[in-house]
């Protein structure tokens, strides 16, 4: 069924068809449609909805639901997501499957309410305390806002780890055609979502369980960290990105989310005027497509990274390229939107 929908609303439909058990949220622009639509749709579906007193409450509520092996999601925007960082670290420490949606806005501080990408470091490098990682999915259209919750829950339960959908205000507010198709089942989905061997469900017919991240015995937390590290490394197989005509490209344009839409215009324009450029859009920014970028760098490609920030993902591109080729950055922080014409002229200068 094809519909015209806002990104935020599509995410709600996608979450519901992914089997969401509970939603908790707090009002903050530019993600309010998620909370509002959840308040209607979740109740229609007879599932749990609660508007909370703060993002601290919301994130701790999905933490609680995850303890019992059920699917819970919260959504917010940059300042609210900052309030959630402590508990996200707890989720990683306790190995709990949760989904957190960040519809990024301009920052720092109260910032503004337009789309931005200044929370990349927080999401990918860990905004909370301790060594942990979060799988981070980056939608760049309304269809992906619909489809990504299902994938996010699958990965969250598969790795028993928090997963973030890192969108931005433009994607959230944009209205596009979306096919509300039946989301495909993962082959091992039933097994992955079955939490009966670890979740807290009341100790009937089994010994009691506890789930916690406080690990005080000598050396035990270090061991726990090594176990988590192994898991984070395994997440590498989940890397996902879209790539167009990079083989014969001299310069590869790299961008995610709304920036990906902008560089795609520049890419088409440059190709039309005979310039060999490629396009690479990470759909996961953790795990980051470092291997692929390294391979392109080995093949002598240069890179133009475009972000709605002062440059954060560009550091991961540079890490992948390790100086083997030129990496340029063009970005506008504070809720600004990069210009296609500027990208075109900058890329031409790299040729």
């Amino acid at each position: 069924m094809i519909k015209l929908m806002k990104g935020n609303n599509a995410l709600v439909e996608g979450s519901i068809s992914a089997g969401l058990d509970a939603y908790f949220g707090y009002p903050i622009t530019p993600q309010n449609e998620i909370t509002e639509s959840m308040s209607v749709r979740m109740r229609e579906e007879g599932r749990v909805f609660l508007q909370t007193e703060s993002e601290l409450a919301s994130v701790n509520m999905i933490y609680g639901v995850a303890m019992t092996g059920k699917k819970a999601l919260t959504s917010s925007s940059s300042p609210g997501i900052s309030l959630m960082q402590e508990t996200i670290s707890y989720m990683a420490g306790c190995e709990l499957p949760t989904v957190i949606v960040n519809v990024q806005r301009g920052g720092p501080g109260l910032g503004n309410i337009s789309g931005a990408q200044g929370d990349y470091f927080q999401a990918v490098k860990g905004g909370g305390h301790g060594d942990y990682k979060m799988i981070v999915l980056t939608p760049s259209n309304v269809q992906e806002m619909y489809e990504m919750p299902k994938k996010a829950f699958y990965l969250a339960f598969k790795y028993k780890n928090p997963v973030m959908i890192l969108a931005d205000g433009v994607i959230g507010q944009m209205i596009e055609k979306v096919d509300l198709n039946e989301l495909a089942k993962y082959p091992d989905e039933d097994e992955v979502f079955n939490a009966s061997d670890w979740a807290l469900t009341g100790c009937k017919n089994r010994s009691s369980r506890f789930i916690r991240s406080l690990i005080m015995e000598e050396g035990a937390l270090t061991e726990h960290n090594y176990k988590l590290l192994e898991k984070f490394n395994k997440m590498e197989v989940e890397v996902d990105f879209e790539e167009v005509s990079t083989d014969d490209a001299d310069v590869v344009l790299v961008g995610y989310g709304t920036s990906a839409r902008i560089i795609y215009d520049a890419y088409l324009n440059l190709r039309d005027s005979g310039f060999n450029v490629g396009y690479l859009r990470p759909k996961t920014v953790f795990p980051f497509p470092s291997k692929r970028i390294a391979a392109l760098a080995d093949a002598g490609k240069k890179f133009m990274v475009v972000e709605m920030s002062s440059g954060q993902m560009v550091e991961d591109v540079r890490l992948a390229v390790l100086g083997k080729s030129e990496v340029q950055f063009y970005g506008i922080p504070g809720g600004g939107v990069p210009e296609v014409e500027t990208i075109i002229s900058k890329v031409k200068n790299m040729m």
Partner: protein
Amino acid sequence: MKFEMPESLKKTPQHYCPGCGHGIIHRILSEVIDELNIREKIIAVAPVGCAVFGYLYWDFDTCEAPHGRPPSVATAIKRTNPNKVVFTYQGDGDLAAIGGNEMLHTANRGENITIFFVNNVCYGMTGGQMAPTTMPNQVTTTTTQGRTEEDGYPMKVCELLSNIDYVHYLERVAVNSPANTLKAKAAIKKAMENQLNGKGFSLVEILAMCPTAWYQTPVESLQMIEDTISKAFPLGVFKDS
């Protein structure tokens, strides 16, 4: 009356200081759980504080919440698992300081959960600092000259929450004497039964000894509750709507 260790308590020594009220509360709570036969339906939420290790002693499913957030965690567990018995066990720092807003709104929504609030007028685990409940002139490691006006006034949680419409049951008890401990057990049982009968938000505030942070012997700390703390925090039922 039976004076034998309840089933719901694991057979293990515990880490609390000599004379600490937590041990007594853990036991009477477990006795109630046995008597109501709900051990297998419980999902409990432990705090950050001395009682964070509750799950080492409680033989029922327990999770650990970030500091101050048990009421939110419990709210969500109960709403998505309505047939489970969900309670939080929190100290005064956890509930009334960092977790004050969660406490307030969980009560305001009348969540059908139970909160066991252990008030020992200090932060025990971190070495005896001032808590919201610390009394005027009480010496702690952060009010070495005694608590003064500039440090605020002791927060009376039962009185505070009693004005909230959807709160069902509030009682303050103590575990500083055999008689008080029996009354405390009765209050715990009533609060738990409220949840089983879907009556909504119940909170039992339990004055407990913390000899280490009060610079007293365990026996003196019994008297401290009798003479001082139960005057600042009067025992009794504050709401039973």
